[in-house]
């Protein structure tokens, strides 16, 4: 299965092809997608890194790192982790644990007071005021509403990767609470910058283009939005028409290949060619993007806290380059105590004329279906597992794995040597060192490779309620959409 994915990572035109494991009936799960970490289909092990699979094979570890295990610990332990985080300047992590504490000890006024202090320092005035009122009257005062919401401007930056992971947990909880259901959050892939090439690079490539910079985790808090509806892009020009154009040009006395064709002077081409093939080539040269259409409706809060909707369209920038794609932020989605987030896979990629091998979508049939048309409405469960990268090195895990340190485990579990040993295998300390040296060096997408036509997008793995597994890179013509939140919670 993994071997089948390799071409998709190597060859530009194949990037983003979903890879699906055929799941024998014995591996299939019962009907109804599991909402917790239990019940994952076995085929998921083929799509996740082996070390991740090994870590999560321990049920109690998985419950702690990808479930509600933290909330099951003692109130005193939750306070200790919160206080330790606060003393290190990790405000979001301290608040996350302060919230857990007020949840399990709702009549403890000092716990509410701590939460008020932390929220105040983070600029969450509404949560601070409500928590302060609870501190004065824990039993009668109303509980604070959700405050860490997409669209809000967070002035306090995350102090570490652990702090960022806690922030993602906070936003996952509050978005779900505010909208009445677990939702998918995304960030535009160019939220951390747009690279515009030099004139020399344009000459070398033959046409202008733009690239999204790797998406930094420090840009997630202020750029996250909830996905409400999404429609992926479509391929605009198939290879067959381009090939026809190239042949016609060659017949007219030009020695061209497909790679060089777009470097031709467009005016020269247009003035020379008047036949149909020339016209198709003119179109190809003038509008070289292979993708068109596509939109995503997002919702977020405005400055006044009101939910607003916004329709966004990805922008084509060159032959295969697109920017403005919605990149899922799974850690910030679904609710922090959930193992997975429910998303809708929108697939609009494969044309019959496409010379790339048709990809396979989920199927439990003996012969997996070959996709030749637009497919949407495929609901899948994506484990809340992400990959962070610093330079060329990447780390994969859950938000809790990057949020907790060994000493936190000791505080939460007492004798936690077993889990601490497992957690240490992630080597998150190296990631924290990279963050400390340069917070902008940690990214959740790797961006464009220097020698590739297609940027490396965000890889997502998921499974459906029939037990079939999916793995794909978010690409212009396929991405994940959120399940629409209930309208009543506006």
């Amino acid at each position, binding site marked *: 299965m993994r071997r089948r994915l390799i071409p998709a990572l190597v060859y530009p035109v194949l990037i983003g092809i979903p890879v699906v494991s055929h799941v024998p009936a014995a591996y299939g799960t019962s009907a109804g997608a599991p909402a917790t970490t239990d019940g994952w289909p076995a085929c998921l092990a083929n799509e996740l890194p082996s070390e991740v699979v090994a870590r999560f094979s321990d049920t109690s570890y998985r419950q702690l790192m990808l479930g509600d295990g933290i909330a099951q610990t003692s109130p005193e332990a939750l306070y200790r982790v919160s206080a330790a985080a606060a003393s290190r300047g990790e405000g*979001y992590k301290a608040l996350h644990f302060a919230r857990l504490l007020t949840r399990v*000890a709702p009549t403890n006024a*000092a716990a509410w007071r701590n939460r008020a202090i932390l929220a105040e320092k983070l600029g969450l005035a509404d949560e601070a005021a409500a928590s302060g009122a609870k501190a*004065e009257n824990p039993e009668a005062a109303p509980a604070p509403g959700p405050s860490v919401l997409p669209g809000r401007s967070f002035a306090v930056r995350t102090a570490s990767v652990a702090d960022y992971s806690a922030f993602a947990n906070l936003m996952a909880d509050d978005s779900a609470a505010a909208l009445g259901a677990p939702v998918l959050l995304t960030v535009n892939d*160019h*939220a951390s910058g747009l690279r515009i090439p030099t004139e020399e690079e344009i000459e070398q490539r033959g046409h*202008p283009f733009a690239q999204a*910079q790797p998406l930094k985790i420090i840009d997630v808090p202020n750029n996250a939005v909830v996905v409400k509806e999404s429609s992926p892009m479509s391929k605009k020009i198939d290879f067959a028409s381009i090939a026809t154009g190239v042949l016609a040009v060659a017949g007219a006395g030009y020695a061209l290949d497909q790679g060089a064709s777009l470097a031709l002077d467009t005016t020269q081409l247009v003035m020379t060619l008047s036949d149909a093939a020339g016209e198709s080539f003119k179109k190809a040269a003038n509008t070289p993007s292979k993708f068109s259409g596509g939109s995503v409706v997002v919702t977020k809060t405005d400055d006044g806290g009101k939910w607003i909707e916004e329709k966004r369209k990805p922008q084509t920038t060159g032959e295969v380059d697109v920017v403005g794609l919605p990149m899922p932020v799974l850690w910030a989605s679904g609710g922090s105590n959930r193992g997975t987030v429910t998303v809708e896979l929108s697939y609009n990629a494969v044309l019959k004329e496409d010379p790339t091998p048709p990809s396979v979508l989920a199927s439990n049939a003996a012969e997996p279906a070959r996709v030749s048309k637009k497919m949407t409405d495929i609901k899948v469960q994506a484990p809340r597992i992400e990959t962070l990268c610093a330079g060329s090195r990447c780390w994969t895990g859950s938000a809790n794995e990057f949020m907790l340190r060994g000493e936190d485990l000791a505080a939460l579990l007492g004798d936690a040597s077993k889990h601490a040993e497992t957690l240490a295998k992630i080597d998150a300390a190296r990631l924290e060192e990279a963050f400390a040296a340069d917070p902008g060096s940690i990214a959740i997408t790797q961006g464009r490779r220097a020698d590739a036509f297609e940027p490396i997008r965000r890889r997502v793995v998921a499974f459906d309620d029939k037990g079939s597994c999916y793995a794909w890179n978010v690409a212009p013509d396929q991405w994940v959409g959120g399940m629409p939140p209930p309208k009543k919670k506006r």
Partner: protein
Amino acid sequence: MRITTIVILTAALLTSTTGAGQGALTPEQASLERERRAQAAETERQRRQLEQEQQQTNLMLMQSQMAANQAKAGAAAAEAQWAGSAAALGVQSGMQGFKDGDALLQHNASKQLLMIQQAAMSYLATRRESGRSNFGQTELIDPFAEGTPPGINPAALPSCLSLDRSLDAIIVSAGCSSQVCGGRLQDGDVLLNPDGTPVHSNADAQRFLEACNQQAAGLVVFRRSLSDVVPVR
């Protein structure tokens, strides 16, 4: 034969230089000439069409650039967008391609350039800066430690009041007696509720001060020592 050749060449020369004497052309020559002129006209028409398209594209480029500049409002941001302060906007290097606008506009893939401008505008329209301030180190109250009244936040007490953990109560801070309750209290006095119980929340401490400062607002009691509860009217 030689004379005939000279005549024909002369006629052809006259035709080509003056345009007159078309009637002297053979039908084949006339057909070729018509075809040549038609091609020239078509080429000219395409050239003009291209020029128009180029002008329209340039106009769109200018309009989009103006819109982007206006959208950014601040002159500094607008200048940064197209004039090289790319790093401030997260746009990395390569801006000379846009700085030298003429060079790029001369690039015949102007529609692609427009795409990039639109991409840049979408980037500018949707992107928000990340937070920059630090949280700083913060000390929390231990909700489970002995002697910590659960409802008191020492950091949020009114000035000149403090938490005495040994007494489990709020007291008048040292050196502050003249600034509290019209100078009627002393350093170390314990604030009490009207029912005689120690004040155990920030809100009750605030109410105590308000009543005490207004003097006539009602009974205020405080404890000067373990056995001495002093009512103040």
